């Protein structure tokens, strides 16, 4: 029994150490600003299309389902409200984070993993560069900035998706849809909608870095690290989103 637990416990411990080091480097020189910008570009703009696509279709699907369900109670006019709340609170953050985990946790893991197996990480350490400072912290910062931005964009595009469905399928007036969207949203929704992606961003970047940096076993190992990073990050996002929602539901 203890043996089964030993692996995960040690892994969690190592992950926490990595997180601690990455955080501490925020306050330590040298800062690799170039790398932060490069990562913002690759994580942020590189994922924009995916985020927009996911946002649009989840909004549209939700519009379709909600419009029909609400129609049974004669409440089709409230479609915008429901779409907005679910998108901003839940689906926008979770789906965007999942997409970005699929794209970037795995991307980061394979990039750092190949650096690890080709001894580039060792070379960095040998040449006086802290790989955590140079590789992990910039990815962490970049994701923490970009994921909330992408989520906001995905939320908005999702509402557009809902709107397209609302006018084309349920023939709602545009004005009614958007008014009900805006009126439905409260500050706590916005806070929740931004806090979630901020927290998820650390999962996405640090899980990717963690699996990348501990890669062993050549090219095969890189493949393994990539898959593990994506799966772990996705599962953690599901678990975390439930917990955070629970906290918000309890406090409001």
């Amino acid at each position, binding site marked *: 029994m203890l043996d089964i637990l030993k692996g995960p416990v040690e892994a969690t411990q190592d992950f926490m150490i990595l997180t601690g080091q990455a955080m501490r480097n925020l306050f330590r*020189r*040298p800062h690799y600003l170039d790398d932060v910008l490069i990562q913002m570009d690759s994580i942020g703009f590189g994922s924009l299309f995916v985020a927009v696509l996911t946002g649009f279709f989840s909004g549209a699907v939700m519009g379709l389902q909600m419009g029909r369900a609400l129609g049974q109670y004669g409440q089709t006019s409230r479609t915008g409200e429901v779409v907005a709340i679910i998108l901003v609170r839940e689906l926008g953050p979770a789906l965007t984070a999942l997409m970005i985990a699929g794209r970037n946790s795995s991307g980061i893991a394979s990039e750092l993993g190949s650096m690890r*197996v*080709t*001894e*580039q990480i*060792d*070379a960095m*350490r*040998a*040449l*006086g*560069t*802290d790989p955590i400072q140079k590789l992990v912290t910039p990815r962490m910062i970049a994701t923490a900035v970009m994921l909330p931005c992408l989520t906001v964009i995905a939320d908005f595009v999702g509402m557009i998706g809902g709107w397209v469905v609302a006018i084309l399928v349920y023939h709602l007036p545009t004005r009614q849809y958007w008014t009900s969207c805006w009126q439905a949203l409260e500050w706590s929704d916005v806070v929740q909608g931004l806090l979630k992606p901020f927290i998820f961003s650390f999962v996405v970047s640090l899980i990717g870095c963690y699996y990348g940096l501990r890669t062993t076993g050549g090219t095969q190992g890189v493949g393994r690290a990539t898959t593990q990073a994506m799966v772990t990050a996705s599962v953690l996002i599901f678990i975390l989103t439930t917990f955070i929602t629970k906290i918000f539901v309890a406090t409001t």
Partner: protein
Amino acid sequence: MAQNDSILRFENVSVTFDTVEALKDVSFDLKEGQTRIILGAAGSGKTVLLKTAIALDCPSAGKVILFGQEIQNLREQQLFDIRRRVGILFQEGALFDSMTVERNVAYPLISLRTASESKKNVDRSKDKPAEPTQSIRERIQQALDFVELGQTLKQFPDELSGGMQRRVAIARAVVAQPPLLLYDSPTAGLDPITAHTIVTLIIKERDLDNTTALVVTHRYQDGNLAANFRYNPDNAQLEPDPTAAERTIFMVMREGKLVFEGSQRELEASTDDYVSKFVKRD
């Protein structure tokens, strides 16, 4: 040449990964001006030995003394200063594939600069002054000319052949003029002619800059060249040198243990089955 100063000393060093004992109770003393050739089967711990020498891998027991300083308990930040005095060529080359050849070779020089700039509360006068890029450029050019690849500055590592990448990696290892060099399998995977070029470079570096070195190799010829030849700068060729042997020591690793240590003559005289497998008499 003074042969008494210890550059790198292992005292009963063991290195363990999870269940694998990669090094078992290894002791040796690398003196200034010596070249040690490390032979051994794949997985016998040669790479781990080199990495332990600069604390990239950490001993579970024993002491590693590098330039007179015990390094096994130092923190990563404290190690940076001391690692800067060691050049290392990794088995996989380890060139940064996102950077041009020029940036790769510049890396030790620039990283040296930012690291010393980032240090606070230290005696500034002791720090190396920030070098102007011009002089960095000259040193890069020198290092690349040294490996005869002066024309490749703007290329990326994956545009070069395996042998050229190896030479760029050597340029990066020597550019900061470290007194100690560690070469991990510099000739592995190369054709015999390219391999000969690489060994010539290693001997050239040894003879022109009087560096101390650990050379991991599976080719006995590499050790044989190092032990019997010197670099002649006039014709850029190797020539026989009877005095090289006394500065060249062979070590043989087996399953993490150091099973042989001695001169080429002693190695060739060894009757041990495992050890004599590494000697090619031709």
